[in-house]
């Protein structure tokens, strides 16, 4: 699942890492909007280049590329389907035009994914949580989000442990056709679920003991503060975006 590699936080102390997460999120959104506005390959290429520069600055080039590589199969599929459709229905006058448009669509798909890759690679889950809070998302939702991230590696380990325990009872997980393998999921999923429920109960108890829900006016240890460089990057991004948007509407 190499796509996932490009969407998980990778520690570093670069300029990009230190940017306010809200600014990074906004940049990703702005890029996404441009991808929607433009089908032209040249604009998409500019975006990719910008992302490449940011990835380089954040020292996450290899992982960012993994997202792109991971999305290629899907992109090829999109290209193929659209090419077939365009050619057979004669939407475009020439073959070249049809192929160009199909490529552009596939390209856009890749960009959808890669736009957010930099955000996730350089933002800690904690910062994502703080971002949600600063946008007044009700705390229980933010908490659910953070808990999901916090417990995913633990559940993953539990899954491995259960698989080991069942294998040691003679369950051969790697053998058999699709139907047999599906049946073999039962001894894995039932304990996993049972343990998850038990864990949830223990967690709820601990949350109760730590006054969860005591007041709606929750405070926080850390808060996000926009600094000078955040405003600079924000302004530059908005300016570039406006330029691109303007050009789309009023091409010169």
């Amino acid at each position: 699942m190499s796509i996932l590699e490009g969407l998980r936080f990778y520690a570093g102390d670069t300029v990009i890492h230190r940017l306010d997460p809200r600014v990074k999120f906004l940049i990703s959104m702005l890029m996404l909007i441009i991808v929607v506005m433009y089908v032209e390959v040249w604009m998409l290429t500019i975006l990719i280049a910008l992302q490449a520069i940011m990835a380089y600055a954040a020292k996450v080039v290899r992982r960012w590329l993994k997202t792109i590589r991971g999305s290629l199969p899907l992109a090829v599929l999109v290209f193929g389907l659209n090419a077939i459709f365009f050619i057979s229905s004669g939407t475009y006058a020439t073959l070249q035009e049809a192929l160009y448009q199909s490529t552009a669509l596939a390209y856009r798909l890749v960009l959808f994914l890669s736009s957010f890759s930099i955000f996730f690679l350089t933002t800690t889950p904690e910062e994502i949580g703080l971002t949600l809070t600063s946008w007044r998302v009700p705390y229980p939702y933010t908490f659910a989000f953070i808990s999901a991230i916090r417990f995913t590696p633990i559940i993953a380990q539990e899954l491995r442990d259960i698989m080991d325990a069942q294998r040691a009872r003679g369950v051969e997980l790697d053998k058999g056709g699709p139907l047999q393998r599906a049946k073999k999921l039962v001894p894995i999923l039932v304990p996993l679920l049972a343990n998850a429920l038990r864990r949830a109960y223990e967690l709820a108890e601990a949350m109760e003991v730590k006054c969860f829900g005591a007041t709606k006016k929750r405070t926080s240890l850390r808060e996000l503060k926009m600094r000078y460089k955040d405003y600079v990057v924000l302004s530059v991004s908005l300016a570039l975006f406006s330029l691109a948007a303007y050009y789309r509407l009023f091409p010169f």
Partner: protein
Amino acid sequence: MIRFDNVTYVYPTGVKALNGVSVEIGRGELVALMGENGAGKTTFIKHLNGLLKPTNGKVYVDGKDTRTLSVAQLSRVVGIVFQNADDMFFLPTIEEEVAFSLRNLGFSEEVVQKRVDWALKFMELEEYRKRSPFLLSGGEKKRLALAIILAWNPQVIAMDEPTVGQDSAQKEKLKEMIKQLNLQGRTVIISTHDVEFVAELRSRVILMSKGRIVADGRAETILTDGELLSSCSILMPQVAATMSRLADLGFNAKVISVDEAVRNIVEVLRRFEHTRGA
């Protein structure tokens, strides 16, 4: 029965959990595998039934290279009871849980019935036959996990941290059970950091640290070696720890049972009396 031949194992994450481990465990032995967290105990255990195969080196179970056999095949000979017994229940009744493993391993229905009866009786779970495994208490769940493994009568039984979370009465029962299984001729390997438990078992001790075996000998020798234990972040059992404080007065620091300690203390004190008398 079990032989590790210069085994090295590296996890996909790059962690080298076993680094050149060579050891032989004979049929019918009782062995305690000890070491701090991360020493490689669990990795070692997982090599016994082929869940993990060595990156380098070979593991032999009953003369056969584990790489040539599947986990299911090896499990017939080596039964492993993992630490979290609750990890594997999913059937409506206890007797079905025990039968499940037997059926997987290819026993005929007749044999399955007999083995289920035997295992439940041996682990004193007969009365809970039709009960759901989810309704059992913690101690009962551990007994069920053991019953499941014993049902197919593996020659080797390995237990990963069997004493965690158990009260003293439960530990006492567990100790008796282990001794009995061993007396019946089974090879029993327990991985644990409970020094008091091992001291009472007086078994062979294999001490691991950072993926290597650093000591292999009797409990009396290893659990009284202060330097060795502290280099592996293990606490000495209380009897030995107390006696070692008095070593300078001539008391024997190499004892691990209360009776031995008392006898030695009395002996030394008598000597003091005689010297004074003289």
